[in-house]
């Protein structure tokens, strides 16, 4: 094994099926159904996928969802807006967790 993350790995994602075909099949059906257009368009769901991929720091998903977004007619300019929205939310989440410290401090400090 040369590296933990290799872009060629993505094509072998399905190899994991052999370890538990039944659960893998359920996952595949669930994944496909969740990304079907509904009240939200396919493009909106792809952008959600991209935001989650970025903020979860999954290189495979970032690769896949970037390419899917490009095939929706979006450009890096569009993706940069998603990137900053996701990053801003992550910053807000980090700051919001400061409330825990704030509340603990209020409780135990004189």
């Amino acid at each position, binding site marked *: 094994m040369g590296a933990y993350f290799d872009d060629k790995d993505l094509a072998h994602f399905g190899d994991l099926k052999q370890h538990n075909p039944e659960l893998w099949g359920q996952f595949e059906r669930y994944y496909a159904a969740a990304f079907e257009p509904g009240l939200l368009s396919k*493009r909106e769901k792809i952008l959600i996928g991209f935001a989650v991929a970025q903020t979860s720091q999954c290189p495979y998903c970032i690769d896949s969802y970037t*390419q899917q977004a*490009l*095939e*929706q*007619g979006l*450009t890096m*300019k569009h993706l940069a807006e998603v990137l900053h929205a996701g990053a801003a939310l992550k910053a807000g989440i980090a700051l919001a967790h400061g409330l825990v410290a704030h509340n603990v401090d209020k409780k135990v400090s004189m």
Partner: protein
Amino acid sequence: MSLAASPAGVQRTRRSLDKALMQLRAERVATLQVNLGRICNQACRHCHVEASPSRTELMADAVVDACLSVLERHPQIATLDVTAGAPELHPRFREIVEHARHLGRSVLVRHNLTVQSEPGHGDLPDFFASRKAELVCSLPHYLAEATDRQRGPGVFAGSIRGLRALNAVGYGRGDGLPLTLVANPVGAFLPPHQEDLERDTREHLKRQHDVTFDRLIVITNMPIGRFADWLERTGQYDEYLDRLERAYNRQTLPNLMCRTLLSVGYDGRLFDCDFNQMLDLELAGRCPQTIEEFDMAALAERPIRVGEHCLGCTAGSGSSCGGALT
């Protein structure tokens, strides 16, 4: 699959094509697509014609005359499709359009918008409108940065000026002067759904630039010419072909443009499409090989020469000079 060397010496995977694609035949010649030459005021990075301002190839007078003669003799050819390079830079371009319109044929001009800024071509919008030519205009994307990356710095701004000039004479307003935009991916991926991109482009161009158009079509980048060179330089040729192959859609076959179109090179040679023309893939079998030898009976239901580049036209929703096929 096996390996074959590309013209640039890069190893390419040789693909086996669907039998139904291999057995493709034309059904009629409804469109004569004439490529007037390689000269263009632009040098786009993806151009399959590899056109540029420095190219000098132009359709000779005798070939132009032969094309017009074929149109005169065959009224079943309903459309003359004029392409190049920038076809407007051919000295007889306007005469060709006028002649075909005089014969009552639809004339479709593949117009790059910025050629209007070239000396002596500022009145093109008026000319097009007076001859009621249909315009198919390249605009890869509604954002400047994407379009300029593919077509060159400043091309987007020039294209918007061109579109405004066309709108001013009545094009793209839904009243008989049709203006179609052609979008293609700025990279090694498939185009978006035509309707989605048309909607986004319509909203963006109206809001940001006060420009209107009638229709938008998407085309897939063909793995030939400058685009193939770029794919090879960046090590993506096989990956792109894999992508096209995975997206192969047999339902595109009945509507492929080669089934109703005949392509004429600037030198008068005949081809199944502009792409085969650039690959030098001449007509199969005992078909006439030049416009001077045009024979409708022999050409109408000819077998089509196919190759792995045809995977570009058969991927996803399909691709043609008229846009998506399914």
